[in-house]
Every structure is written in C-alpha cells, then in structure tokens.
C-alpha cells in the first residue's frame, strides 16, 4: 500500500497494465510528449515510446474509430478524451460502431475510453459535463465511475481487461483533492457497488465525485445512521446492492452531478420505484444539477452543482418524513 492521489492511481493502473500487456496502447490528444492535459500519462512516452503512447490528430471520431479497428485485430486501446465534453464529437463511433459490433456480428471491441468529467472549478459549459447517462442509454457499452484511488486503479485495469467497450468516468475534481491507500502491483476492482459507509436510517446512493460530497454531507447528521452506497459501475448497474440498501434503510436520497433529466439517478430511482417499492418509507429523493449548462462564474456554478448543503438538507428533510 502507498498513499497517492486519485490521478496518480489512474496513472499507476495504466502503467501497471501496459507493463503486463504489450497489447495495451494509449491514444489521445497531447497525451504523449505533454503527458496529457491533466498529466495522467506524464512520462509514459519515455517508458513506452510514441507508438504505445500515441499523440493523435485533433479528431475524436478518429481516435475512437481507429481504436475500434485496432481492437478488432487484437490491440487494447485506451482512448483519452481531453475533456469528457469532447466525447460528443466521437459519439457516433462509440454508440453505433463500438456499442453494436458484438451484438450484431459477434466481434468484441476491447477499447477503454477515459472521460475526465465533472465541474467545480469554473470549467464552464464545455469543460464540466457528466455525460455518462448518454452512454448508459446506448446498449453494448459498460460505464464505470470510481470514486477512490484504490478503485480508480483497480477499475482502469479491469476496464482494459474487459473485452467490451468501457466508458471510464474520472471526475476531475478527484484528481488532486482525493488521496488514499493504493495496493501495489496489479489488481482488479469488480464492476459492482461498494458500501462507502454502513448505515440504517437512510441510504445515499451515488457515484464518482458525489461520493465524497455525500460522505461529507452525512458524516454527522444529528446522530442519524446514514449509509452511503458508491455504485462504482453504472453499466452493469448493481441492482442487488441498490435494492439491498433500500431494504436496509427504507429511505433513499440519490445524488448525481449530471443534469437531472434522464440522468443515472433517474434510472436508479426508477429501479427502486418498481422493485423496491414495498421497502420504501418515503419518497425517492433526488439531488442533481438542474437542466442547464454548467455556468462558469463561481457563484453561478455553485448554485447549479449539488453541494454538501443541498445533500445534507435533502437527507434531513427525508429523515423527518
């Protein structure tokens, strides 16, 4: 075990798997010589060379499309979108080519697409998005969103080894703010939920960056016993763990940072409303961003993104229900 940031844990996972598996290839804009916009691949080009740490043209469809081709003939490309927001430019290749290849013709597409996502640092409307729900709504793609350094490393390795296209969400606010113990060497974190904190009065169900918001918001809530469930994987969605949390706590607050309509949280709420209904002692409460682009200016952004206070207030009200 060594303590490291969330960002270094991703780097560590990528480096570990690249050393173990010559088929792994990194592709992206400015990931080589520059080491990536967030320095996730800093120094990689020195160890692995420009062929395996490929600085690509500025072309997201190109990155994804060529990665698909390379995967089909046996490489294991890991694509970086410089910011998650730019994935919209490679959207068609992801949902129509990668997502449907196996179902239609039996060919697995082992690519991993890293999406540095989320707001909170005045990135504005084009550098703050959480687009995971778009991909949850596109069959054939797995979608994961680790919240801790340990999981970040274990899930990037598992994503690379998974023979299917995996959308790997990495919240930019965790990069340097979140530190934790990370096991040495190679290991995989399963695509299942994790109980971040046990509890019995109310369950906060969330993932990615919001796990930390949820923990902070509920670490002491007038002595109430609050469970925090970290989904970790959105596709597959750990329905058993979600329903178990509902059985255990009977009250649920679902938190995600994305715009609320048709977000991951909507799917979780719908699941509970259909299959956890009898265990509910109150409405299924959601906390998410309202349906607007994420604004740039700090006071505006703070008014839009789910905050510790909003989550705490939502929990307090539901506890009183």
């Amino acid at each position: 075990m060594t303590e490291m940031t969330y960002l270094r844990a991703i780097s560590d996972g990528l480096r570990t798997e690249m050393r173990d598996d010559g088929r792994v290839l990194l592709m992206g804009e400015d990931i080589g010589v520059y080491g990536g916009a967030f320095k996730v691949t800093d120094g990689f080009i020195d160890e692995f060379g420009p062929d395996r740490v490929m600085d690509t043209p500025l072309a997201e469809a190109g990155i994804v499309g060529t990665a698909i081709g390379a995967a089909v003939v046996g490489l294991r490309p890991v694509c970086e979108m410089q910011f998650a927001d730019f994935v919209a430019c490679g959207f068609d290749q992801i949902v129509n080519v990668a997502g449907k290849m196996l179902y239609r013709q039996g060919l697995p597409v082992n690519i991993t697409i890293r999406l540095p996502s989320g707001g909170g640092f005045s990135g504005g409307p084009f550098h703050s998005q959480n687009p995971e729900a778009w991909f949850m709504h596109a069959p054939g793609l797995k979608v994961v969103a680790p919240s801790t350094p340990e999981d970040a490393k274990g899930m990037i390795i598992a994503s690379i080894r998974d023979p299917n296209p995996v959308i790997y969400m990495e919240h930019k606010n965790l990069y340097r703010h979140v530190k934790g113990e990370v096991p040495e060497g190679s290991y995989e974190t399963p695509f299942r939920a994790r109980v971040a904190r046990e509890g019995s009065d109310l369950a906060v169900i969330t993932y990615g960056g919001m796990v930390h918001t949820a923990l902070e918001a509920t670490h002491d809530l007038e002595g109430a016993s609050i469970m925090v469930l970290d989904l970790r994987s959105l596709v597959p969605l750990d329905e058993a763990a979600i329903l178990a949390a509902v059985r255990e706590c009977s009250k649920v607050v679902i938190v995600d940072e994305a715009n609320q309509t048709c977000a991951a949280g909507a799917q979780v709420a719908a699941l509970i409303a259909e299959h956890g209904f009898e265990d509910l002692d109150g409405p299924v409460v959601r906390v998410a961003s309202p349906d607007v682009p994420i604004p740039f200016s700090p006071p505006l952004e703070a008014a839009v993104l789910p905050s510790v206070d909003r989550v705490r207030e939502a929990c307090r009200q539901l506890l009183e229900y």
Partner: protein
Amino acid sequence: MATSSTDVPIGPRTPAEESPPAHLTADDRIGLLRAMLLMRAIEQRAMNLYRQGKVPGSFYDGFGQEAVSVGATWATAAADRLCVLHRDLGAHLVRGVQPATILSQYMGRDAGVTSGRDGNVHFGDYRTGCVGMVSMLPDMMLVAAGMAMAFKLRGEARCALTWFGDGSTSRGDFHEAMNWAGVQSLPVIFILENNQFAYSTPIDQQFAVNPVQRAAGYGFPGVTVDGNDVEAVFEATRGARERAIAGGGPTLIEAVTMRMHGHGAHDDMKYVPKALVEEWRKKDPIDRQSARVAQLGGDVDALRDEVRAEVEQATKIALAGPMPDPATATHRLFHPRDADEILTEDGQAPWSGFRR
C-alpha cells in the same frame, strides 16, 4: 458533373485489342467472372424473395457494380482485413462466404451471418477476415484505418481495405480517416465507389471537386479506374496493396461506375435520366468480362448455368432454415471475460499471385 468519369475512357475495347493482364492467369480471369455472375445471381434471386415477402425490411443490391467489389477483393491476401459496404456482395463471395449463408442473412434466418440480428447487406463474416459495416457512412473508413494502424504498429505485412460511396465522402469521418491514414502513412486502401448517385442525390450536389483529387491534400495518391472493368479494378488494388505492404502508405482508388438499380428495392429511381442508364447498360461489367473469357475459350454459358444451379441450391437450403429463437434476442450483449477476443480469421485469397 464534377466527376472524373468524363476524364477516363469507359467502355470496352474488344478483348482482341487488349493486351493480356500482367498479373492474372486464365483461371483468375474466369474466377473474376464467376464471382460477378454469382453476385448478380444471388442478388437477383434475393430480389425475387423480397418481392415474395420472404426478405424482411428493405433490400439493397450492387447491380452493375459487381466489378468493384470482386476486382478489389481478388487482390487481397488471406491475412488482410476488409470492411465491406452495401454494394459489395462480391467481396463476401471472394472471401468465402457461402451463398446459402448470404440468402439466410437476407431473410433474417438463424443461419445468416448475423443470425438475424442485422439484415440485408449489414453484415461481415469475421471468419473471412471481414468486419461488417454499420449504416452510418462512412464510419468504416476509420475502422479500416485503425486495423491498418495495428498492422503497422506490429510490423505485419498486411493491409486493410474498405469501400464507400460518392455521397459518403461528404461526411466528416471521410476526412478524419483520410487525414489519419496520411499522417501515419498506414497500409490501408480506400475505394471510392463512384456510382453517380447517393440515394437520389447526384454527385454535383455532393461535391464541387471529385474527391479522388483530394488524396494529394492528404499526402497520398488518388487514382481513378474504370469501375466496370473488373481486371482494371483488380490491377489498381493490387498495385495499391503492393505499395501499402512495402510501407508506401495509403491509396485512394476511385472506381467510376453506375448504380443501375434504385437505391433500394423500393426505389424506382425516377430521378435518374433514362439515357444515363442506357449508356451505362452498354458498359455492363459482366458482359465485358464474359467477352474476355470467351476470347480465352472459356464456356460462359456453362459458367452461367453452373452459377444458376448453385444459387438455386443455396436458396433451397436457406428457405429450409429456421428463423432465430426469440429467446436469444437479448443474448450476447457483452463478451465473456475469459473468452478469446481476437476472432477475425483469414479469408479466402483466390488470386494465383498468392500461390506462386
């Protein structure tokens, strides 16, 4: 119209006037004709089945364009990888997909290449080294470039090849693939199948300058070839492949041809001037190759009968096959962790040049 079809002389000289092809044996030349005959016979049979309501959805064919897919594929090696498009049934045949499998595919039967999961021309049999197309055109150009990128990175003497139409060149993915292939100098062959129309849209509403002239702007050659001359298409592709394998980078080949049927079975193509169709009927690629084979002393009629019989037999087999089991509709969304993940296998490579 801004096509170079005007620039290249199209239409057969008599076989006697032609010098024999440098890289094709008599058997190759007969094989090329046979593949084109087979493609046409299967598509005509499928069109009947469609009219009889046995082919669900819509149906697309490559009538009149047989030389493009057959000629180009004839030049591919077993280890090459192909992304085959919707006018290119001949490519599947040359690579070894069975007629009965194709007819089953059209009819959505379980024995089809996709077991009924996808329809008509939307398939590729990875057991023959092919990756099936998606409808979004020309997305497969990037997939082909990516396969070529992997070959180059691994230092393998293989190439990737794909087709796309004149209309498809207007999409951004055309540009991203051309640019990528040029920057990385990839062993990929792009075949622009210029059949004068994109659905109902004539090429002059698609581009102001023929896209083959854009290749230079990406740093590699663009060549125009008579797309109704199967041996010319073969030769252009053979040369491009030789360059690719030798590290010479990509080639864009424009095969000038004509879509002789509607866009799909539903399309009466009222929008196409009758005269244009008539002009092109005289340039039928099968007639042209038949004349050559006859000149070689080959028995074209016997070949036609043989092919017709083969297709009848295949139709019986296909019609006898069951539809897929509804219970399987949600299967295979994800690939199991432990299973092999590189599934493409080599295809047939009938060209005599690979056996010498």
